[in-house]
């Protein structure tokens, strides 16, 4: 036990002391907010400095009216198509919207001419306005006053409340649950990949530099493997902790500094005013607080830590086994597939099944099978999972982790002393079966 502890210390200290660790750890959380900040800043700048774009509108129906905005002004005229196009070509107009005479039942042939591709937001703004006007026109023609329609229009927002066996009611919001599951799942996925690879590299380094022969004359290969896996887990947790603190602080600073003028909101309003309004109504501060307070944080945090470590240990052992079987990182490729496939299945499954329908059969299996459960279960936990399913999944993960560590130990023990031979799956199987 003392010796494992020595290995853990060495693996941890030698990595944390590296300059590259310090750089990555400090820069990564700086980079994301920095990129975001720069984008926000550029977007704001652009909006302020942009020259007003004039769009020539030729409406052969004489039906439509488009309201000018800060960015776009609409000039209505009876110019011929050719003349209007000429204006665009000469640069006098940003674009030319041609609305030919059409059948109100089947509007078609509306075209936008521009020297450059118009932005998505402009096109959807135009489409929305035209659609609204056509709808109004058609209502009017079938004898209904559009005003009545406007008055009748109602907003409905469903407040979702979960009931547990004791009858306690908790307000929930799928969006918040989705976000939590999404972030947790991705974090675990990335952690397994990045640090699993570090384990593999470390094993290959010890093997190819032949240190391993000296090490295993002082301690058991299994102790060495476990020490390395745990030591690197410590490095990962340290990094994660620093990131959480840094990102938290930085986001607060950045959002505080830029104020609340987030341009997404404006872009959204321009593109789809109804949705934006709906969002604004739904995201009532009080409701959000209610939802946030309804989340079972303790369960989520505990499961996150459990699956984070469990998944890492399960895969970490496999990465160590791969490293021990090969002489150089480039040879590792052939054995990576059985490790990467379940990880990718879990990752895809999280988005395709789990987050969309946490209680489906597929989601259940994804969150119970040990190879996929660390990632998939996090997508379900935030929505709330029956306690027996959680226990089953955790129990199986522990069994799975013990099993992969046992298998990996068998491969590792022989692999680290084998040089110059490229093992196949068949040889690995032989190693697993060998008793000494």
């Amino acid at each position: 036990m003392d010796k494992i502890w020595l290995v853990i210390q060495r693996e941890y200290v030698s990595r944390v002391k590296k300059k590259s660790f310090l750089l990555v750890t400090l820069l990564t959380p700086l980079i994301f907010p920095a990129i975001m900040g720069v984008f926000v800043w550029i977007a704001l700048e652009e909006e302020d400095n942009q020259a007003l774009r004039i769009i020539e509108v030729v409406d052969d129906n004489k039906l439509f009216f488009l309201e000018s905005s800060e960015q776009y002004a609409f000039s209505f005229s009876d110019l011929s198509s050719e003349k209007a196009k000429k204006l665009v070509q000469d640069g006098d107009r940003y674009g030319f919207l041609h609305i030919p005479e059409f059948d109100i039942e089947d509007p078609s042939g509306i075209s936008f001419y521009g020297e450059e591709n118009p932005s998505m937001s402009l096109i959807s703004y135009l489409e929305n306005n035209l659609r609204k006007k056509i709808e109004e026109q058609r209502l009017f023609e079938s004898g209904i006053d559009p005003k009545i329609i406007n008055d009748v229009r109602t907003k409905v927002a469903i407040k979702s409340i979960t009931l547990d066996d004791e009858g306690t009611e908790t307000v929930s919001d799928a969006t918040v649950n989705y976000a939590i599951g999404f972030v947790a799942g991705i974090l675990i996925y990335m952690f397994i990949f990045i640090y699993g690879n570090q384990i593999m590299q470390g094993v290959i380094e010890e093997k190819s530099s032949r240190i391993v022969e000296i090490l295993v004359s002082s301690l058991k290969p299994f102790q060495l493997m476990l020490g390395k896996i745990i030591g690197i887990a410590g490095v990962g947790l340290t990094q994660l902790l620093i990131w959480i603190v840094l990102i938290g602080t930085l986001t607060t600073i950045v959002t505080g500094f830029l104020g609340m003028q987030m341009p997404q909101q404006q872009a959204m309003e321009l593109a789809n005013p109804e949705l934006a309004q709906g969002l604004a109504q739904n995201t009532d501060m009080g409701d959000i607080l209610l939802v946030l307070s309804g989340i079972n944080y303790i369960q989520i945090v505990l499961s996150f830590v459990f699956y984070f470590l469990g998944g890492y240990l399960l895969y970490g052992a496999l990465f160590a086994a791969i490293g021990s079987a090969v002489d150089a990182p480039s040879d590792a490729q052939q054995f990576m597939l059985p490790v990467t496939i379940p990880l990718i299945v879990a990752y895809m499954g999280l988005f395709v099944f789990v987050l969309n329908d946490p209680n489906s059969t597929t989601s259940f299996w994804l969150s119970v099978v040990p190879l996929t459960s660390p990632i998939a279960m996090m997508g379900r936990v935030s929505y709330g999972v029956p306690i027996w399913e959680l226990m089953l999944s955790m129990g199986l993960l522990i069994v799975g982790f013990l099993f992969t560590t046992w298998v990996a130990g068998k491969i590792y023990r022989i692999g680290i002393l084998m040089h110059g031979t490229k093992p196949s799956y068949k040889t690995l199987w032989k190693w697993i079966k060998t008793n000494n």
Partner: protein
Amino acid sequence: MLKIEKLNKSYGVNKALTDVDLNVSEGVVFGLLGPNGAGKTTLIRIINQIIDGDSGEVYIGGELLAPKHIELIGYLPEERGLYKKMKVWDQMLYFARLKGLSPQEAKIKIKYWLEKLEMETWKDKKIEDLSKGMAQKVQFISTIIHNPPLLILDEPFSGFDPVNAEIIKNEILELKEKGTTVILSTHRMESVELLCDQVAMINRSKKILDGTIKKLKSTYRPEVYSVTLDQLKKDLPTEWISKEDEGSFNFTLPLSGKKPNDLLNELMQYGQVSRFQELIPSMEEIFIHQVKSTENG
């Protein structure tokens, strides 16, 4: 110190060790000889408990080999290895701690050895910044840092220049004086003759001979004498192919079953015997001869 009985090990169909017996007395330098692939490394790995034998027993100090014996052994493998990015001091500390030394003990020992081999100035250097010879010295110290009563050195002189090889050789002899048992696995026969008290030779998984150097040399002497005759009284028999050098005749004669004295008497009839010397085989000759004869037989 070390006793091995009927040790067997095979890798699949390949036999690495077949019924190997060994007996290494305490306080000797024991040479483990054999061509590449003979099974030396396998034997050493089994003693170090890196791998297990298939059958047979290994005893250390009379006790059946067990995990606790790891701390009694210092092992220098043929393929050296150190963490390239680690500093000399940290590296030695790590190896010493793995061999069971407390941090305080380890620090005292490391300081002692760094001073002894005049390496104090390197202690904060990374291994990758050292020359090969310097790294070898670090490796050697790491091997003996915990004062093991049994030292297993696999080709200890490879990678050293003559000056440093001499230093290491003297350290080995000094350790032996202090009672350390040393197992030396090597191809370099001159170091065997200089250092070893006992040897064992392994070829194709089997031990083909063992004993003290003196005993081996006498067992395997060719019973041939080298003779110089002066002032010839009569012509030499034609089968004695001799070389004349200013009136002296040099040649070799096998005993052919006679006693040395009879042979000498016979020679005296031909002239003045100015040299009569038995040819002693070098370890290298014994080694090559034995390897060839086991391979042909």
